[in-house]
């Protein structure tokens, strides 16, 4: 049995025929072909599958597709505006925030979400804001640097 799920993904109206308990992660990766969203653990611990759903970050591996019906979703593919990188993405490159890149999509989304909520986060707010996303490469230091830099970039652009 399949159900229809209609949602907006990165600004485009989408419709998927999927089993009702299919994971949003699989729908995005396999139906929408948006493979930037990664699976790291499949149990909501690592945050590699983080996407923005109706303005809040979620672990897409824990969201049943049906729950996404009628929602607005932004994945990593929707963070840059065309060829112009988001300040968080640019700062991740310049400050070494991405190493193997597997946690990066989720980490970038979590950082974008944090900077949407907190304009100029202090160290603890950055740490807390990224606590749901595990990185095994960087020791987080360069990611903190990147988020601080992104906050500066965002503050200096009108």
């Amino acid at each position: 049995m399949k159900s229809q799920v209609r949602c907006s993904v990165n600004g485009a109206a989408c419709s998927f025929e999927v089993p009702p308990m299919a994971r949003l992660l699989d729908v995005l990766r396999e139906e929408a072909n948006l493979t930037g969203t990664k699976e790291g653990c499949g149990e909501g611990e690592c945050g590699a599958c983080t996407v923005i759903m109706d303005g809040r970050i979620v672990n897409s591996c824990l969201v049943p597709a049906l729950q996404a019906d009628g929602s607005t979703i932004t994945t990593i593919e929707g963070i840059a505006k065309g060829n112009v990188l988001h300040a968080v993405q640019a700062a991740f490159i310049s400050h070494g925030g991405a190493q193997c890149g597997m946690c990066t999509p989720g980490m970038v989304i979590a950082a974008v979400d944090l900077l949407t909520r907190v304009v100029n986060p202090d160290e603890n707010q950055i740490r807390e804001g990224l606590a749901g996303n595990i990185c095994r490469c960087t020791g987080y230091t360069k990611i903190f640097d990147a988020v601080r830099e992104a906050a500066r970039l965002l503050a200096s652009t009108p």
Partner: protein
Amino acid sequence: MPDALVGKSVPRKEGPDKVTGRARYIDDMRMPDALYGVTVRSPVARGRLRGVSFADGVPWNEIIVVSAADIPAERNHVALLTNDQPFLAATELRHAEEPVLLLAHADRHLLERARNAVRFDIEKLPALFDIDKSLAKDPVIWGEDNIFKEYNLTKGDVDAVFARADIIVVEGEYSTGAQEQLYIENNGVIAVADENSVTVWGSLQCPYYVHKALLGLFGLPADKIRVVQTETGGGFGGKEEYPSLIAGHAALLARKAGKPVKMIYDRAEDMVATTKRHPSRTKHRTAVTKDGTIVAMDIDFVIDGGAYNTLSPVVLSRGTIHAAGPYSIDNVRIRARAVATSHPPHGAFRGFGAPQSIFGLERHMNKVARAVGLTPEALRLKNFIKQGDTTATHQLIKEPVDMPSILRRALAEADYDAKRERFARENPGRSVKRGIGFASFMHGSGFTGSGEKYLASVVGATGTAEGKVRVLAASTEIGQGTNTIFTQIAAQALGLDWDDVEVAQPDTSVVPNSGPTVASRTTMVVGKLVEQAALGIKQILVQAGLLSEPYTPQQFRAAVKKYIATVGSLRSMAQYSPPDGIAWDDQSYRGDAYGTYAWAVYVATVALDTVTYEARVEDFVALQEVGRVIHPVLAAGQIEGGVAQGIGFALYENVVWREGRMANGQFTNYIVPTSVDVPAIRVFFDEVPYPHGPSGAKGIGELPMDGPAPAIVNAIEEALGAPHPALHHVPLMPEQLMDAVDDLLSARRKSA
């Protein structure tokens, strides 16, 4: 002439793809008609397989099934150091989760049902999970004595020193647990295979290891086997040897199915079935004079290799050579053994045996200091190795090394003296007690002993139609920055811009064998070959009369294009040959164990809550001499990441074994440091260019794994103000800290 690229933090090559989600990892690749593949594994740690049956309710006629019977017996082994590990177990089951059957089908969900419907009839046999039982041959499970490998390294006359009357003898025993690499991308491959050829794409560190294993499995000509590394989401050693097994599995299924097979492990399977860091035990017996001069070290180092030999002998070797540390000791004896157990084979993990033996040594050094009434730093200063001294393997240190200055600077950066004094004053009245501790250590760059000579790595460079230079190497980008470093080295050598150089995707049908991406060798050893191959391109252009120095990047590009248009393919190759004066004897285990070493002192400040028994690293200083730093941001990123893994090794990452199987194979209950757990990690470099490295660089990747665990536990000992047996093991979990805290506090209450 463009600005020098070496020493500059240029943007990483694949950075934009990684931050936008465009980077394609193995699970992001799709192939029409592909099947999924899964592995059915042994439920027992040791046994004899008597039969297999397939339960009803699954359309078995639709499912491709591969067993050991599908592989000629003489080919059913993963080619590595010895050929003891089968691709699929036939009758002897030697560890839990050992692969027995492979299944493939287009429907993943059906496949999962099928996996659960396979029934094994097994006669259970006594299993072995303990180093001491393995040494006691209780029972014998491998060879005649359970010993995969033994090294006996001697320098001077240890027994004569211990017979002296004027020495103090300090003994200690230390151990380390297994550790999971926990790269965020699980293992995975896609295979296409028929009777004549095999192609595998995958997440892996060493394309030519996989190539060799497939060669052994299928017996095809070398050019009929192709291995391509896709973007790889972390390795840390965990994708050094294990991908050979998965590649073989997927290829076996693909060949039988006549369709591509995609085999991607989920997290639980990756954690319970694939390799981990070798658990270890080190016994130290040290002879020291009253003034703190260490005159003899007698070390017994044992690692748990698991059920098959795999890479244990070389892990043991690195652990052995690092066991006596950066000290000049006249009399050293190291007995080192890798033993068999019924655990899944332990394997490569950043540091490769060295973090294990260095934990023992650097904990023991503090015990020795205490025994002679010196501070930990005073003892080290008395015994550090220097230029002109010899290591435990009789290696003469030819390059300048200044451990005293590294130590002093690291301690100063950490505010060591002031903190030590302050913590001693403040701790007695507080429930949160603080301590500061450090470890001094070194890490050899590149393969051990004659390894690089035997490898004889090759790197190529070609000119492209666009006038660029393309680096051809099998060395993989796994997050550490290979693409970027190779670009910097080649562009710097040729005086080109950063975007004039490309790095080819590692594909055995395109790139030569530059050796595995392991052993802190990629920048130093392979990077030097990249430099030579790049210079070869220039030489060809100059000899052809198309280029003369000085030239601009535009002139170089024009010359490349013209050469290709008029002469044809432009290609230069470079092969490794050892620098002069490097000698190693495998028989006596003596000589130049490594071309060079990176040297370091790491300092940890730890807060220990004596109510909750939590230990928290509050500050971390990592100071190292790694030759010339090619890319400051990438280099610091390597150190910070390694330190975080080292903090996990010390305090969080506890593999819980139940009947030889990892019982906590989930992110939920195997805990790695998160963004709120890591301290400020402050990284400092001393730069002493190494003459044989590209632009003076040495290896760096593994070094940061060595120091954190002993530094942190030394700090905890300082916080507690006294030694305790619980502090001789990592991971040091709250349960063990509770023992230490309660014992020491109640002892103090009694004495008060």
